[in-house]
């Protein structure tokens, strides 16, 4: 049995809801067949009041061992570092994190809020939200500090996304429960490299339109053609996620459905802080060059490629491909 304690700080429960969409294994499979013992989860567990508090204290005091501490939501420090904007079971949630994180075998941050503060941390960050080991923008440190390691000697394992895909969560939990910690390699943002090395664009059905620099005329039926990067703010070419390799709800992805990638697996999300004119609009320099180029390109190489792409674009790339 692998024990899992799941807490929610400044959270919307979206990662939990996403997790319940898991299949192969489903949440039920994880518990019944894979030996995950969810000792507490705010949505799924029955324990309430004193019964729940007694349980939490037994982990906080180290009387009981916890294998995996899953944290969803930001760590709230307001007001003035007291954490009183987020009270849980009688004390600031951040105090529970202080006590439990270092005693857990592994600490897993699920979703953007837990990894780097997420949406609550968008300026002016009224709740003084932080991620467990990173701050919004990607600075290492966060609430637990840059040197934190859990009992097994690993830093916080970050599974970002707003929300994280159920498979990113369940497959990592299965791997950890199966003792495959050694197979887990983390990137510089402490994300499992197996999921966060390819781009959102890898597997996107619109990639041929990207190649020939063809953008759709508008949302709606215009989305039966074109790449969303050039005009609609899509961050697929510079965001690391497997959204188009491991589909959402087994059906689709944002970009397949005509929805620009918002870059939610990267610490800058929402990029541009939702300032005027930044929502679903590509930010450009001098009206033509995207402010954020595809990963690994600069303005010069981008302009060279764009010019060539448009020049050689075949006729079919200017027409609807996803026809009725």
């Amino acid at each position, binding site marked *: 049995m692998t024990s899992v304690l799941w807490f929610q700080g400044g959270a919307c429960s979206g990662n939990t809801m996403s997790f319940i969409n898991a299949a192969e294994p489903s949440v039920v499979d994880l518990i019944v067949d894979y030996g995950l013992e969810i000792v507490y989860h705010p*949505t799924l567990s029955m324990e309430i009041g004193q019964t729940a*508090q007694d349980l939490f204290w037994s982990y906080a005091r180290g009387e009981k061992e916890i294998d995996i501490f899953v944290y969803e939501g930001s760590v709230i420090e307001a007001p003035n570092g007291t954490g009183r904007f987020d009270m849980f079971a009688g004390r600031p949630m951040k105090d529970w994190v202080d006590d439990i994180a270092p005693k857990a075998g592994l600490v897993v941050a699920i979703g953007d809020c837990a990894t780097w503060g997420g949406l609550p941390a968008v300026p002016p960050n009224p709740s003084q939200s932080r991620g467990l080991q990173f701050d919004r923008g990607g600075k290492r440190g966060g609430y637990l500090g840059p040197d934190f390691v859990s009992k097994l000697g690993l830093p916080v394992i970050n599974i970002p996304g707003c929300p994280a895909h159920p498979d990113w969560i369940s497959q990592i939990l299965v791997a950890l429960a199966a003792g495959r910690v050694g197979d887990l390699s983390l990137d510089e943002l402490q994300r499992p490299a197996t999921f966060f090395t390819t781009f959102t664009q890898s597997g996107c059905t619109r990639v041929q339109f990207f190649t020939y620099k063809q953008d759709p005329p508008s949302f709606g039926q215009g989305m039966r053609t074109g790449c969303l990067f050039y005009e609609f703010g899509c961050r697929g070419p510079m965001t690391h996620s497997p*959204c188009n390799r491991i589909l959402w709800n087994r059906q689709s992805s944002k970009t397949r459905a005509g929805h620009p990638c918002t870059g939610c697996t990267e610490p800058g999300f929402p990029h541009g802080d939702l300032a*005027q004119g930044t929502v679903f609009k590509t930010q450009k320099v001098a009206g033509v060059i995207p402010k954020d180029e595809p990963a690994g390109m600069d303005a010069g190489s981008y302009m060279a490629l764009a010019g060539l792409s448009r020049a050689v674009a075949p006729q079919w790339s200017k027409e609807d491909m996803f026809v009725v």
Partner: protein
Amino acid sequence: MTTMDLRVSPLGQVEGDLDVKVTITDGVVTDAWTEAAMFRGFEIILRGKDPQAGLIMTPRICGICGGSHLYKACYAVDTAWGTYVPPNATRIRNIAQACETLQSMPRYFYAIMGPDLTAAQYANAPSYEEAARRFAPYVGTAYQTGVTLSQLPVEVYAIFGGQWPHSSFMIPGGVMCAPTLSDITRSHAILDNWARTWLEGQWLGCSIDRYLQIQTWEDFLAWMDENESQHNSDLAFFTRWCMEIGLDTYGQGYGNFLATGTFLDPELYQHPTVDGRNAALQSRSGIYAGGQYFDFDQARVTEDITHSFYKGTGALHPWEGVTDPIDPADGEAQGKYTWAKAPRYDVPGLGYVPLEVGPLARQMMANRPDAAAHQDYDPFVFDMISKVGANVLTRVLARMHEAPKYFRSVKKWLGEVDLHEDFYAKPAEPASGKGFGSTEAARGALSDWIVIEDGKIANYQVITPTAWNIGPRDGSENHGPMEKAFIGAPVQNPDFPVELAQVAHSYDSCLVCTVHAYDGKTGRELAKFRMGGG
């Protein structure tokens, strides 16, 4: 007489942190305080941002009903900008909103409500073994299929929105997607599969058409025993079990209701306006208070912060609303006890009264006479409430009654999507305007008020269903609806007050859903109870 104060922290499975303080006299709750324990300040973050920021931000207020947040956030901007929304786009928005709720119903029932039904204190009731066999968390036969299959309706959401939760595919002027033929046919097939395996196969034990013939409480009771399949359905067993363990005897509340309604008619709401909204709704809006129906008017809504952790006291309309948090430790000294504001509605002749929102409220409105041809008319729940009253059981029955109705609507809208017509019309983006968008999340009325100035958000206020239901006392010391519903509930075992959980769960409150969410007396050991004299 024995009186004690009991503090339950956390009261779990409310999708967030809810603390409840109750006074118990001779084993019955005589007073209650609901305390939302967490604050993120999304309304503050939205100030000064892009007018469309709410499309990204507000779904993340609550991952449980993020699609509902998106639906109303979009209409808030549609009305502020004066957009044109093609009928196809409204159909897709409706399909997505309804599919999110179809997911929520079984997920709520089995994951949140079901486990309470297997609490140890019911072990001596005759049907306990059967209740545990079906509803025990993770291993119950009904739990396993109900929870796992709840993923299917949101597969349809993903076909149109890319993913669930947290898509932002509804945008002013329409939707981002442009479905193809196979998107429509696959959606039909997924939903049919879900209906066959869960809705009809497990929950109803009969066809949707048969179930929806029920018009009265007597019809429902007769339906339960009409044949073996219906008798053994989860719905019929749940009803019998609730009656065995007394869940039909407490959790009444005020008996006054508000619905802002949802599902705009695709043809009648092509030019969304605040004033034109009521007439275009399929699931009607309205207020039922003091035994009378009233039209819903957003101008009569206020939020009172007298007992909430915000600077000042009194009540404001959301367009003028202010969210200015204070340290809970200071708030407590001023008699404040929660992050939830107290939404109130100025009912003609009755004044500012607390109103319950949710499926029960929606279905009360469905009984209102004079429904237009496109509007839902359904007398069942009103009849049930007038005969047996509101309580934990009937509140859950009202919620689950909507599953077959929503299913039918989704199938109809899918059939009406015209693949060769528009799904979006690019709107003008005027620099200023005021908007109101609203819908019915699974758990009740959910609304945004937006003020746009100089092309930016000047004010943004959200009132969630959870705020309506779990909000605190107001300036006149009227209890919030759920506080009221706790009063009269029995508490058999103060160490495990499952009755309080059952009342709370009958509202399906998602606490993170109170944008303003709290704490109690800091530093004090919660859940510890004091024995008082008296």
